[in-house]
Every structure is written in C-alpha cells, then in structure tokens.
C-alpha cells in the first residue's frame, strides 16, 4: 500500500509552490551571504541603482566618464533596487530583486514549458531551473541582474502570446504587451534576441496548433501576430524612447573590446570550462536527448531550433555561427547570455526527460537527477570562489573616504589595479572619474578609440590599453584629473615620468594616491550629451510604470480555458502524451 502511494507520488507533477520553496531554500541563503557582490557586474548595477536612488528623474550621472547618461541601459531592475534601497540598503535591495527574478524564473519556466510538454514535465523543468548552472553562473559569477530579471518576465509573457495568437484572448493580449514591455525595460538584448529564440518558436507552435480544438485560420493567426508585434513595438519604442534617442545619437561605434566568451572553447579550454561546462553542467549529458527528442516530436522542433541556434552562438568562437549571424554585434556582445537562453529553451525537453526517467526508474532516477542538479548548481555557485573575478579582495571604503574629504572630490580621479571594485568605489564616493565599467555609455575619445575596457585594468589590454591610459593622462588638465589611485605598482613608472607624484597611501600602504600639480578643478565636459528634462521624466516614469502595470494586469484572474490535447507521433510516457497546456 505504502509502495503504491509512493509510486503515485512519483507520477504526479511537482507543485509549483514546492518548486518556489526549493528556490528559496537554495538561493536565499546564498543571496543573504551577498555572494553576487563578488561577481563581475553586480557592483555596476548597484552603482546604477545608487544613482537612481538619489536622482530618480535625472539619468545624467557625473561619476563616470566625466558624465554619461544612464539612458544607455534599460533601467528596470536597477530602479527596483533603488526603490527598495531605503528599506534594505542597496546591497540587500539588489539581493531581494535578484531573488524575485529567480522565483519568477521558476514560474516562467513552468508556464513556458506547459506550452510544449505535460504539466508534470513542466514542473520538472521548473524545478530544474532552480538548479540551472547558467542561472547560477549569471547570478553569482557574472552578476547580470538585467538578463536574469528580463528572461523570466519574457518567459512569463510567452504563454500569453500563444493564447492571444491561438485563441484571441484579449486579456492575454494586454498581459503579453505589458510583460514584453517590462522585459524590454529590464534588458533590451533579451527582448531583441528573445524574439528570435523564444517568440518565433512559440508563434510557430501557435500556427501549428491552429487546427486543434478551436480551429483558427492561418490568416487570423497572422493578423494577430502582426497586431501584437506592432503594439509591442510601439510600446517599447515609447517606454524606452530616451534609450533609442541615445542609441541613434551615439551609435556603438567604438573599437570592439576583446572578451573571452568569444574565444574558441576547444583552443582555450579554460574559457570552455568557464562559459560551457559551468553554465551547462549536467545538462551536457542531456544534449543528445534534447536533440533526439526535439527532432523526433514535430511539435518540439521549433523549440529545438531556437535552442540549437542559441546553443551554437553561445559557444562563442568555437563555431563561426555567432560571427556569421551577429556580424559586428558578435564583437560587441558577450556570449554567455546565449548559453543562458539556450539552457532555458532546453528546459522543457529536460523536464520531459526527467519525467520519463523518474516515471521509469522511480527513486533511483530521482536520486541521480537530484545529485546531478545539485552538483550543477553547486559548481556554478562555487565557481566564483574557485575562479574569482577579483583575485585580491579589498575594501574601498578608505579610498572613498579620502576622496570625499578636504575638497578632493573637486577633481576627477582614475583608479589603476582596482578591477571591478571601481563600481563599488564610485557608489561610495562623491568624486567623479574619467573611467567606468559601462563601456557602451562612454563617449570620451581617449576611451572609445582603443578597443579596451576600463582603464583600471588597462594593462590587461596590452598596448591598446596602455595607449588609452596614456591618452587619458595626457589630457588630465582638460578633465580635471588630479588623482590616480594605484593598487598595482606596474603603473608607477608611467605616472612618475608623466609628472604625477605620490601624495598619500591608504589601506596599509597597499594603495597609493598620485597627484599632478597644476590641474584645474573638474568642469562639465560632456554637456551636449545631457538628456533634456522631459527624457529624465520619461525615464523615471515609463519603464518602471510598465512593470507596475504588468503586475496589476497579472492580478486580474484569467478565464479557465479548456485544454487542448496534442498527440506526439509515438508514446514515450503516458503523462507526456497529453500535455494539457494553456497555462494562465
């Protein structure tokens, strides 16, 4: 009797509440440990959020690049962090928003998977999303809050897109528009590429399924697709208008900056480990299944194609596909987000596999899958410790305090050897820098002409990096650049021969402050790029407002819709044969 109950339990779907509790149990402690603060970009997003916290309606940030506009980056997750920062502080606020994104991902994966597979398989997919290596990699090692925030919103929008195109549900129409717009307000690339990898397969599915149940003509499906694409495009154009204006006025023409995600992972196995093995984890073992099953079931083929293209691009320079399909964008974008999307696209099929395995091998399979999932997640979380972004961890509070006192912040500064502590320092100090970590926001020719990242790490960019640094130091008077804060004595000879002198040392003499005499106080140099006030008002209102509208719309309950049955060409598992879908 007990065994029979156990078997029944093994054949049920996993309740979504249990999936969410698992996500909380796994990720809440890690986020409370502030693990993402060690990642590449977390401090950058906290820096942006810090600006919104102080200047919600003024996107002009004077702390980097002698002034730059934050309208060059969609603001939604950073504005949410800023909003809750008075209660939790910026760091904890960031962790709270990241946690919400992780929870939303589980829901999004579940709802997205329901389009393709059975509720049981979808629930396995949702559970797998909690342990997804690429998610943990982006959260704890890359610190890509906007990507991990936008993707779940996008995944949650896709079932509404399906319902609108397939069933002309007006409620879904408005919900889809609100969610797509909010996703774009969180991360523009997710929307742009998500349209190809996620939306096209879903539309293909809707067109394919149009004859099932409530049949609908091809023309009707096409018209609905055109209508929603048009409305979403207009909504995004309006909500992110300042972003588009900044993009058209200052297109990204700067020299591409090398990034290891574009390396060939076979020729450079260390980057293969970083950008393939860690993000995919145990999913690598499932790749043959994903391809075979995705090919075998005609219904899954659109999803398979989306996965395959994202997978190939996510391999960076291992294949020429990214270079062919993205053109110049290949040298501008980083590839780990494509692997992230590929893993999300694979999850429904992985859920199907897990459902089959547990259905067939019961506790043995459940145990093995649990170990693999936990191992994948643990490896991705541990990666930030085994492969730290900042080899030397140090506090920048003392430097910030130095810059904030005695009028030192009347001048600009640049750090050398600070890695991604620059964002942290910039958040804490009132002084402005000519450097920064948001490369697409910079306009200074000394930075854009050389194909290098932040000046603080210029030596790692070889001759180009050092040329860029020298060009900037050469124009110190113009930029009011009086302070060079050095934590790497490699740069000392240059500073000495260029006329800087050490004037103070901090942090147990590990940090030296160099100064150049005769430098005038900093003045505004990029005034022509300051967005007008109306753009600031739009930027502070519409992106955030789009998320509020989306939340309100989602609170409106949807009508229960009858389920449509879809038959696969041959049975695999009784549960998977009847993937009742249409979640709402």
């Amino acid at each position, binding site marked *: 009797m007990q065994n029979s109950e156990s078997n029944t339990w093994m054949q049920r779907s996993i309740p979504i509440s249990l999936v969410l509790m698992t996500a909380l149990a796994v990720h809440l402690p890690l986020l409370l440990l502030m693990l993402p603060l060690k990642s590449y970009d977390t401090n950058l997003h906290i820096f942006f959020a810090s600006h919104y916290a102080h200047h919600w309606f003024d996107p002009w940030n004077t702390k980097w690049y002698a002034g730059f506009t934050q309208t060059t980056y969609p603001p939604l997750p950073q504005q949410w962090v800023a909003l809750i920062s008075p209660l939790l502080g910026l760091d904890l606020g960031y962790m709270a928003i990241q946690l919400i994104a992780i929870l939303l991902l589980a829901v999004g994966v579940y709802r997205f998977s329901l389009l393709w597979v059975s509720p049981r398989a979808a629930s396995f997919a949702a559970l797998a999303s909690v342990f997804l290596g690429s998610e943990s990699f982006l959260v704890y090692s890359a610190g890509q809050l906007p990507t991990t925030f936008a993707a779940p919103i996008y995944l949650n929008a896709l079932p509404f897109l399906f319902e609108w195109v397939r069933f002309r549900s007006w409620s879904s129409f408005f919900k889809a528009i609100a969610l797509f717009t909010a996703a774009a307000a969180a991360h523009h690339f997710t929307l742009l590429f998500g349209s190809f990898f996620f939306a096209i397969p879903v539309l293909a599915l809707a067109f394919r399924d149009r004859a099932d149940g409530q049949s609908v003509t091809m023309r009707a499906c096409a018209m609905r697709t055109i209508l929603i694409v048009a409305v979403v495009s207009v909504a995004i154009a309006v909500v992110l208008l300042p972003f588009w204006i900044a993009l058209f006025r200052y297109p990204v023409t700067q020299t591409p900056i090398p990034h290891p995600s574009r390396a060939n992972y076979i*020729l450079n196995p260390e*980057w293969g480990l970083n950008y393939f093995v860690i993000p995919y984890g145990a999913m690598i073992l499932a790749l043959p299944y994903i391809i075979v099953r995705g090919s075998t079931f005609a219904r899954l083929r659109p999803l398979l194609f989306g996965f395959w293209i994202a997978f190939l691009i996510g391999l960076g320079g*291992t294949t020429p596909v990214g270079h062919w399909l993205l053109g110049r964008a290949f040298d501008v974008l980083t590839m780990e987000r494509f692997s992230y999307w590929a893993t999300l696209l694979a999850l429904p099929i992985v859920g199907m596999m897990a459902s089959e395995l547990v259905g067939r091998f019961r506790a043995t399979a459940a145990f093995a899958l649990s170990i693999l999932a936990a191992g994948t997640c643990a490896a991705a979380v541990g990666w930030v410790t085994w492969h730290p972004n900042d080899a030397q961890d140090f506090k920048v509070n003392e430097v910030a305090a130095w810059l904030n006192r005695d009028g030192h912040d009347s001048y600009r500064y640049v750090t050398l050897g600070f890695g991604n502590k620059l964002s942290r320092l910039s958040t804490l100090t009132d002084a402005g820098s000519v450097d920064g970590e948001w490369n697409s926001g910079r306009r200074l020719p000394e930075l854009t002409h050389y194909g290098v990242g932040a000046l603080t790490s210029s030596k790692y960019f*070889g001759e180009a990096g*050092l040329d860029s640094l*020298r060009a900037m130091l050469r124009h110190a008077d113009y930029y009011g650049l009086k302070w060079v804060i050095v934590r790497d004595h490699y740069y000392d*000879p240059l500073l000495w021969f260029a006329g800087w*002198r050490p004037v103070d040392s901090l942090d147990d003499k590990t940090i030296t402050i160099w100064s150049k*005499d*005769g430098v005038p106080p900093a003045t505004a140099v990029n005034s022509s790029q300051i967005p007008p006030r109306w753009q600031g008002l739009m930027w502070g209102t519409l992106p955030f407002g789009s998320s509020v509208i989306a939340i309100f719309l989602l609170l409106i309950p949807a009508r229960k819709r009858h389920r449509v049955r879809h038959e696969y060409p041959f049975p695999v598992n009784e549960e998977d044969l009847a993937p009742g879908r249409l979640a709402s």
Partner: protein
Amino acid sequence: MNKGGLLAVFIFAVTILLVVAGTRWPVPSAAAYAGGGQVSRTASSPEAAVSNLCDRIRAHAWDDAYNSLANKARFSALDFQHDLNGTYPGLLTYTNLDSFEMQPLHASASDAEIRLRLKWATVVGPSVTTRQLRVVRNGDRWQVEWPITSQPTLAPEVIPVNYLRWDVIDRGAGDDWGMQNVDAPHVRIVDMHPVQRAEGTVILGELLNDDIYPAYVAVTATLLRKDQTPIATEGSFDKISHVLLPKQVTPFLILFPDVTLADVGSVRMTPFSSLIAASADPVIEIQSQHMSPAPDASLSGQLVNQSGQVANVAHVLAAFYDSTGQVVWIADQYVDRALLPQTPTPFDIHIPEDLARKIASERTVVASYSFGGTES
C-alpha cells in the same frame, strides 16, 4: 530512418562540422585568444618553431618556452626568463609581448637563421628588442637555439655616496602636495619654436630652473589661430624631465596631433613649477655618446649608474641643435633594463632622417625611477 531521426543526425553532424570549422579556422576574435589563429603549430618549419616560442613567451609559459629550446642544456629556465625580462625589476619585468616579426636570413635543410623583433607593451610605451636566432632541425621538428645573454650580477661592494638633497617641510598631513603657499621656484623657457611634422604640429623647447631650489616642472602649450581663438591645448607629458635641480635645463616636446602649423597664429606657453623635495642621487653618467649619421641616424651611448642603488627605469631625453644653437628635434628612449650600480647599460635614440643632417650638437638628460625607492 524517419524524418525526426534524420533531423537529429543532421543537427549532430552540422554541429560537429561547425565546431571543427571554428577550431580549424577560428573567427578573428577567437584567433586572438588562441594566440594567432591556428589549432596548434607543429614545429615543422623554422618559422613555426620561432612562432611557437613567441606564443609561449606571450603566454608567460616560461617553462614550456624553455623546454622547446635546442640549447637549453647550456642555461637554466631562470636564466632564460631573466634574459628576456631582466634579473632586476625593469620595464620588461612586468610587461607582455604584444607582437613579433620574423625575418628569415638564411635557411638550409638542417638549420636556419631568423632575425626576431619582439615588440613589448610596456607601461611607458612599446619597446622593441631584436634577437638573431639560429633554428636547427632535430628529427622531424625544428628547435630554436636561444642566444642567451648572461645577465650581470652585482658583487658585494661598498659605494660611498655624497650627493645633494633638498627636503621640503610640509604644513602637515592635511597638506596636499603642491599646495604649499610658498613662492614657486623660478623657471623660464629658454628656447621654443613650433615645427610641422607628419604626425602634427610639434612644439620644441627647453626649460631652465633658474632658482636655487629643485622644482617640479611641466609645460603646457595652447595653439591659437590668427584670430586668437584657441585650437588645442596639450602638455609635455613625459617628453620632459619633470624634476629639475637648481640651474638644470630640460628639453621638452609637445605634440598636437592633426594640427597644421599653417593654421597656427601664435602659441601661448604656460610653464608650471612648484617646490619639490629632491636629491641628486642616483647620478647617471653618460659615457661613449656617439652620433651615427643618416641613414639610420641615432644617438647612442652607455648609461652608468654611479650610485649604489638600482635604478629600475631610466628615461633618456636628448635635444638636438643645429649649427646656430637652435633646437631642431627632441627625442627620447626608455631603457628597458634596470641600471645596476657601476654597470654600463646601452641606449640608442633614433633620429628622423630628414633632421639628422641639420644636427650639429646635442644635449642629453637622464631621469630615472626606482620602485619604492629614490627617483631623480
């Protein structure tokens, strides 16, 4: 096989083909990370052997580079590394190999000679070293015979020093450097004139510390159009010796890229000086100075560090004069090896060929920097 099976096979096959293609012929960004663009070069030719060696040097894989050498039995891996980077910290110690060029000089079935130019990305600018390599055939592969240069080692010795030193008493810890509220040392520009060069307009000149105290100096120039509106402002940056002892003169050069001299109506010069603590140590003597005529005109000589301390980086700045005593060019060189006490270190400053014929005399000043120690 059904349609689905065929599709799966197609996806597998295409993926594998794409990976093979991407690995065999990497896209440019991947090739840059892979160190040149090919999967692995077997040392099947002299050039491939040298290229492999340079890739290893670039990757700081010293042991691998050393183990690939034909004559490694004659020296240790550390000797090899010191030969490239210096025994004592200098410009090349922490630098990276940026690029390299090979020029085959001779080749036979069993050996070859290749001139290798190594371009290092140092913090103060590119530095080029040239080595003539012999490459020998060993079975089916080629190996480089590295022309090791033994690095000088210092014998224990007591060197008495008796140098001048000037200290400055600050107001306190809160006093920023340069905010001294005392009269700045008196400096003046003793020569200045603009010239048109291919890279833009260049201001050449000399600055004299006319005071009895050492001075930190810098020079800024603003080019003005004929209607007195400014065209551009630039500083001397590192083309000047920033620390001048009393009565010392430094040449300076200010470059205005992309500015045509014909557009310039006048030049506003702004010399800057402030009081600075300084010492005459280390004294760097210039020996065997020699001008080589065009073509390949250059000023060469040897620097001898007279003090007992290692000077890690030396900067040689030379002013060249015509027969009337007017400055016609200023050139400089960073010496990429540390200056050891009492040990001659060569320098060689290139002079543009079109100017070399006008040069009648020259004056050379040397500035140096020591990591965590003394500077002058």
